[in-house]
């Protein structure tokens, strides 16, 4: 056994802190660069259940709508419509969800003071209230055994004003929310 060198496992503290600091610094730089450009990638707001989206004006390109059955926080299959918009800008966007905590209602609200730019939006809604304008609007019926494919609505541009949407699922590939504010407040709900 004299020739054998006894080895043991050891963590080099200097190397550890160096690597940790370098990693955190790189993460910081990445997050700051997101903060500066305000861009978040692949943002899902799913599984939250019914929540509301309100805005003053939406201008979008490449719009497609079809009906479907989907999950909500209170049901496995509720009828709803899927809106797909390739590129859009929203003025004065507000997203909110109300939770009942004990006997009180709490509203979690996200709002953006500046125009929000989104690409690759998928939005499942149970209710859409808005003043709408379309260009090249096409409504088509298809002969299909799948009921979700029987009806489709497409348009090259879409403009919605003073809208309120009851939303079940929202997914954006990229979203640019400058001037974002998140608030949690108590509300009076009858």
């Amino acid at each position, binding site marked *: 056994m004299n020739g*054998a*060198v*006894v*080895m*043991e*496992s*050891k*963590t*080099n*503290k*200097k*190397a*550890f*802190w160096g*690597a*940790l600091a*370098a*990693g*955190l610094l*790189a*993460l910081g730089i*990445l*997050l700051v660069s*997101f903060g500066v450009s305000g861009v978040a*990638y*692949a*943002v*899902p707001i*799913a*599984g939250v259940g019914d929540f509301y989206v309100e805005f003053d004006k939406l201008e979008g390109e490449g719009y497609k709508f079809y009906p479907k059955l989907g999950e909500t926080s209170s049901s496995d299959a509720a009828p709803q419509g899927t809106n797909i918009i390739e590129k859009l800008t929203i003025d004065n966007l507000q997203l909110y969800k109300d939770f009942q905590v004990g006997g009180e209602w709490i509203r979690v609200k996200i709002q953006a003071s500046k125009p929000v730019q989104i690409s*690759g939006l*998928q939005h499942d809604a149970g209710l859409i209230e808005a003043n709408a304008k379309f260009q090249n609007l096409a409504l088509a019926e298809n002969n299909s055994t799948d009921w979700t494919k029987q009806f489709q609505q497409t348009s090259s541009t879409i403009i919605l004003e003073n809208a309120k949407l009851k939303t079940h699922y929202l*997914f954006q*590939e*990229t979203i640019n929310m400058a001037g974002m504010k998140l608030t949690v407040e108590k509300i009076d709900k009858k």
Partner: protein
Amino acid sequence: MVFKKWRHTRPFFGAILTVLSGLMILWVPLNLYLSTFLPGSVAVIGLMFGGLITLMGLMSFFLPSASKALGIIVIFLSILSVIGALGGFLFGTIFGIIGGALLTAWQMVPAQESAGAPVADAAAQAAKTG
């Protein structure tokens, strides 16, 4: 004990943290399974980052001699996983950076050189690395 000896010859905690971080990062795109596989979806990248980090963690259990290189790659991928997987809501990224730093800093040294501690339990500590 055999396990204790096995544990002492590889970057055990670094590897565990790395695997945990990979699983956390995977969790986000897997929850988006509906949209993840749509063409053009960024979430596929998250799936790849999470999978690679988990693989690196497992590899560092069995290839301790490569832990320095694996650690650097883990840190790099953890940071990039903020894109496409939200970095496992950032917890995955933080765990990945700590795990990667532990892997990078891990080394085998002759027992005599260790911070002044005498070789108390040579049977448990003694091992050779490749």
